[in-house]
């Protein structure tokens, strides 16, 4: 490495609530380094008051998502080399959520909408009942399985322009969760889900711009899940009219 590349110029968002600005730090460059490593280095060696959130460091827990050069990313699995722009990188708090301080956002609206979309699993049988047999090759099981690897990192929620313009909108993660439960044979009342996603902030506000699917770090497809909800609710609507 040349001397010029020995440090990174890192802009980090600092501030509480709506007020704030970017602050620049010089961070030593390493051969292998993630964005989360960079943020941690700043907190350890440059400014101990920097606030951020992380837990597992291996892309399982979904707590370290931030905006990196304006794109939502899971920072623990985003290599600096992949996003570095002329020796510089800009790190900010997730979009579309209220900022608590620096890089930590308030995730409450995100999880509240999960519940509002019918995302709480209610089992169709108790532990006293025999376990129902589920065929893994069954179509609806495969549709349900397509969405279960969601880690609730809120990257899709931060990527979505519809959420940005329409604060009521439930957003891609919550709606994908609803679609997963709707296709889960072990979920108690599946028609309840269709009612929960048909309100003023429901799946019908989606414009299928697909940023959720483009940015999902786990390669999930919330846009198609939302399309599934639109299809089922439309079918229900037409059936009721007959």
């Amino acid at each position: 490495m040349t001397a010029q590349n020995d440090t990174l110029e890192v802009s980090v968002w600092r501030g509480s609530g709506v007020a704030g600005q970017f602050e620049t730090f010089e961070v030593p460059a390493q051969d292998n380094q993630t964005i989360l490593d960079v943020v941690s280095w700043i907190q350890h060696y440059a400014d101990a008051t920097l606030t951020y959130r992380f837990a597992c460091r291996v892309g399982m827990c979904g707590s370290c998502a931030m905006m990196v050069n304006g794109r939502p990313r899971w920072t623990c699995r985003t290599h600096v080399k992949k996003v570095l722009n002329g020796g510089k990188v800009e790190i900010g708090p997730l979009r579309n959520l209220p900022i608590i301080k620096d890089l930590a956002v308030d995730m409450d609206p995100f999880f509240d909408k999960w519940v509002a979309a019918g995302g709480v699993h209610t089992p169709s049988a108790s532990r006293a009942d025999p376990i129902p047999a589920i065929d893994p090759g069954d179509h609806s099981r495969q549709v349900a399985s397509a969405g279960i690897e969601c880690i609730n990192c809120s990257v899709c929620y931060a990527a979505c322009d519809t959420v940005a313009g329409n604060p009521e909108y439930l957003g891609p993660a919550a709606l994908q969760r609803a679609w997963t439960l709707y296709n889960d044979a072990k979920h108690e009342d599946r028609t309840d889900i269709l009612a929960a996603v048909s309100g003023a902030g429901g799946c019908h506000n989606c414009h299928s711009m697909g940023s959720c699917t483009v940015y999902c770090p786990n390669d999930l497809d919330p846009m198609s899940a939302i399309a599934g909800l639109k299809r089922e609710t439309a079918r229900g609507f037409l059936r009721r009219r007959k």
Partner: protein
Amino acid sequence: MLDLRLYMLQRITALIMAPLTLGHIAVIIYAVQGGLSAAEILGRTQGSVFWFLFYGSFVLAVAVHAAIGLRVILHEWTGMTGTRLAALTWGVGLGLFVMGSKAVIAVTWPVGLP
């Protein structure tokens, strides 16, 4: 802001207009050959029940479709909500319907009637 009812209304009017729009484009391409004149247009359309129904249903569908579309844009770009948004939505729809109906009547009604 867009519930299931408005969504279905938007999609149904879109489906109604899909063939009408293609027909309209075909008419435009046909009509502009050799220039346009009021007499030529009216000669084709005035007193025709077919064109009255064609453009009448087109106007009805487009008034609803444009009103709902503008409602979404207004909400997302200006943050307007509630009664104001609803009033503006249906005001726009009604305005377009009235203006469109006047146009349809002007070009398809048999001469001298209204």
